[in-house]
């Protein structure tokens, strides 16, 4: 079974006081540490586990600059066989452009399954996976929490809204967007990542893909980034822990949650 996993490097934003930059269209990123998108980590692990059980290969793809190769090497250390980076130069990327670039790369790689994370931790758009499926003409399923491979098909568990789950069957080739918690991603040590440097990492310039200007024209753009205005209605609950818990429980019940 040959699997392609599309991954992304995102800023680590926990505990950071984000600052909007002067242009008001983005945040200041110079101080931020970057990591592999959490959802993608699960997608890679799932692909590697499938490969370990059913043989085949795992190829990881990202669109980004040289620094983004770090996540490819991490994926190689986790057990991926090949890695591809598409260098977009200074192009603006939105879900439309990104899925177009990815489609033109994934098309050239034999695949039974394409995995992406449900969303990326930076813009949380969650659109690249399904757009990519459309462009590749693949059947797809989103927010997958379990994959049971059968012959040429797979039984999937999907997470729906409102705490509901669905079980469905999908025929390969297919694209699945992977939800966190589907597995326990393995730890790869710094030594392991360095050793994975010997595996193949291919770099493709955007120009080599033969995409037209129309293909590379973003369909969405950010007008302005701003912090939400301070709203009223915050209630500070005071008292000993027992009383606080009581009050919390009462409020949650009042808001209609069954507990």
């Amino acid at each position: 079974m040959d699997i392609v996993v599309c991954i992304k490097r995102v800023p680590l934003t926990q505990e950071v006081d984000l600052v909007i930059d002067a242009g008001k269209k983005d945040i200041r990123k110079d101080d931020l540490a970057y990591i592999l998108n959490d959802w993608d980590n699960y997608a890679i692990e799932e692909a590697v586990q499938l490969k370990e059980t059913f043989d085949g290969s795992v190829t990881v793809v990202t669109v980004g600059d040289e620094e983004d190769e770090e996540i490819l090497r991490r994926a190689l250390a986790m057990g991926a066989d090949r890695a591809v980076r598409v260098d977009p130069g200074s192009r603006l990327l939105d879900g439309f452009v990104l899925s177009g670039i990815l489609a033109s790369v994934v098309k050239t790689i034999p695949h039974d399954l394409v995995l992406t994370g449900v969303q990326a931790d930076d813009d949380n758009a969650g659109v690249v996976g399904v757009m990519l499926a459309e462009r590749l003409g693949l059947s797809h399923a989103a927010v997958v929490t379990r994959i049971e491979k059968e012959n040429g098909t797979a039984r999937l568990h999907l997470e729906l809204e409102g705490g509901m789950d669905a079980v469905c069957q999908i025929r390969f080739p297919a694209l699945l967007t992977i939800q966190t918690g589907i597995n326990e991603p393995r730890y790869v040590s710094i030594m392991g990542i360095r050793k994975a440097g010997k595996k193949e990492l291919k770099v493709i310039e955007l120009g080599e893909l033969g995409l037209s200007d129309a293909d590379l024209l973003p369909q969405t753009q950010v007008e302005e980034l701003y912090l939400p205005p301070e709203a009223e209605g915050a209630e500070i609950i005071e008292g000993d822990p027992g009383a606080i818990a009581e009050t919390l429980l009462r409020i949650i019940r009042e808001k209609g949650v069954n507990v």
Partner: protein
Amino acid sequence: MSTILHPAASHYLGIPGVVFGWIIVVLAVGLFGYTIYKRLVLLKSAQADPRFSNIGERLKGLLTFGILQKRQPRYLWAGILHIVIFWGFVVLGLRSLELVMQALGIPFLDPLMKGPFGGFYGFLKDLFELLVLAACIFSILRRAIARPARYAGSHQFEAYLVLGLISFLMVTDMLYEGSLLHIESDARGWLPAAQIAAVFLPQGNPSALKAILQSSYWLHILALFCFLNLLPLSKHFHIITALPNVFFRKLKKGAIKPLRWDVEDIDELESSGAGKLEDFTWKHVLDFYTCSECGRCSDNCPAYAVGRPLSPKMITIKLRDYAYSRYPVFGPGSPSANDAGKDDNESGAIIGAIIEPDEVWSCTTCGACEEECPVFIEYIDKMIDMRRYMVETGQAPKTFNQILMQFEKTGNPFGKPAAKRAEWTQELADIPVKILKDGDEVDVLYFVDSYGSYDPRVQEITRAIASGLHRAGVSFGVLGRREKDSGHQVRRMGEEGLFQMLLEENVETFQGVTFRTMVTTDPHAFNTILKDYPVSFPVIHYSAYVESLVRTGRLQPVKPVEPHVYTYHDPCYLGRHNGLYDPPRNLLRSLPGMRLVEMERSRDRSFCCGGGDIILWHEIEQEEVRMAAKRIEMARSAGADCLVTACPFCLIHFEDAIKTAGLENEMKVIDLMELTLSTL
């Protein structure tokens, strides 16, 4: 002068005794040599370990801890018994040689033994025969009746067998000498053991005496060679390996061994850590051979004391039993023959098969076991090597993934932004804290480390140290966002590559600044920078630095401390690993109104609080009580109501334990710096 022939010179069934002598010696020595050869095969297949440095220091240790047995009396009665038996062996070795050479018909010691030295030696060896016999009997009774708990899980049968055999050797020589006393007419000086034996012998029956003389001699010789061959098959191998093990002991306490001693570039390594027996170093294999199963390690192990699944003694016993079954004396030449047909990765795997992961994660690296071991068996490096293997093969606790990622990406375990590393200074409005840039010059580089920088409780200690330095007029600075975690935890969690990354960044930053002394909040950071960093920096823990400030009058404690009975808890990485027992105590005694009592377990027997690494991120489920809770009880039974410590992790664990036990009104815990500052 009697005409009786020496037993070796007598004939038996027409064959001279010397022939039997030669047969016994050749067979026994041959078998012994073969066993030793098999033991050496494993030793040789183990990893490199340079243990030939500082020969002078090693010889000194050999004398102090080997010959003089300095660590033995830490357990007074067992220690005295052991010293008696050990010195008995030293004294009686010559006697054994004398008897064996007689059996071979080469009695080259006989002229010496017939001279004045022989007279003195005869008395001495007789005295020791009695002492050793008494010590063996006491030891047997101790094991059988008193049953010290620390022997649980040890090979008890071997112990009885060997004690019995030693007693047998003493008794046979006494009978031999006793019968000789009756047979030979000439006086041979004072032989207390022989004279006691003679009382029980049939003086007037020459043929019976002759039979006793001959049989006790040959039984003695036979027992001696049985004993010799028993050694490398049992826990009594230590009789041979203990002195070398002491000589080759680890000299740099607190440091962790590199991945491989013989490979400098870790990128060249195919695997990491100890996953199978042969991944340990030869010295660590020698440790396995040397353990006498006395259980002093486990008796002092805090993890064992609180019911965690770790017993250091059992780690050694299990690995040795496994080593002996993997390299059997009679069996295939090398274990590869045993492994045939097994998966390469599976063959010889120790984790999960011989040692459970939580045994390895239970260790706090406090060093109590190593401090206690009379023969210097090492545990910490082995633990770290097994952890390295588990991290590398994805068998480490999953909770580590996030923590290690945060260490890597943000330089601290919390995943907090580096930009906030010096935020603790904001509450020090009137005290300027210099954030050092490349090229800056200060007296003191204050290394705050991650907990000191981000943990709200530890920040209070950090601010107390900064205030103290300021009050003393010390020019000091911190590295702010350029400081990375010291890497103590990362290294002890087994993530060596990440540790190397952190230390390289820190070393580069340190080298960009000019400073006289580096002062740390945390004993762990102090130890790691001092012992684990490849570049030498003048680093010192704040307790020692502040003590010197008080001693030289730059800080003057004048206000009395709050009226408590104080006791001081030695943090493992300050005390045991670095020998800093006195500076914190001196500092405490310099505070006005100080009433200081000592806990029973203090200084090198201090009881770990739970530690500053694994416990923070991995819960050992099998635990009866928290180490910190146990320690609080120890402080209370010493009569103290305020526990002083000098390590942020001790403070956190103790505060937790006091709250959990609801002892807020009876017991207080305070950091040494906070206490000192309150008196200025």
